[in-house]
């Protein structure tokens, strides 16, 4: 199962922090996962296309082309603002 995490503004926009998801048919990359999630509605479409959106796979910052096997932890979040 994929573990999906959403942080900060994304968490608020989507109303969810965490979900588990069976890898959807045809989804083999982070980009494809994003497109799959965006079909859930306008708030997903907007939130997952915010400028500067980051994605991490296995707690490492990843690119959109990063492949997915189906058992990863995938996190979406806005630019970081700690310190």
């Amino acid at each position, binding site marked *: 199962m994929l573990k999906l995490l959403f942080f900060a503004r994304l968490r608020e926009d989507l109303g969810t922090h965490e979900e588990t998801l069976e890898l959807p048919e045809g989804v083999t990359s982070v980009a494809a996962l994003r497109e799959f999630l965006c079909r859930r509605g306008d708030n997903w479409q907007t939130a997952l296309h915010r400028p500067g959106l980051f994605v991490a796979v296995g707690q490492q910052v990843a690119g959109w082309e990063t492949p997915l096997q189906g058992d990863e932890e995938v996190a979406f*979040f806005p630019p970081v603002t700690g310190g």
Partner: protein
Amino acid sequence: MIVVQEQDFDLQHEYAALRQDCPSIGAIVTFVGLMRDFNDGDNVKSLFLEHYAGMTENVLADIVEKAKSRWNLQAVRIIHRVGNLLPSDQIVFVGVSSAHRGDAFSACEFIMDFLKTQAPFWKREQTEQGGRWVDARRSDEDSAQRWEK
């Protein structure tokens, strides 16, 4: 030592830990980040700090390793708070000990610059106009990129 915690921290305690039992240390540089009561022209009444547990610690450990490979350091300690904070509260501590001051200064600033731009923390601030997520600053990106030279 890298810790993310809700509770406050004590500079003296961290300093004592950096200093202890090592007569080859010649320099200790500490940084404390405090919550300011204004940001982008507005008064800020409180702050909520969220982070990505697990990834945060990994990113910070990676930044410390980079610093240690670049400068000659004795010890590094990092504490970052999360949860609800008020103006003047301590947010973050970075302490570095080294034989020489140049290494300690550079490493401490390097760690802060990359903590700011790479560690997954997010601030939501409460102003008189309501709540808002803090935007990332271009100047923080610029500070981190200086080190690539």
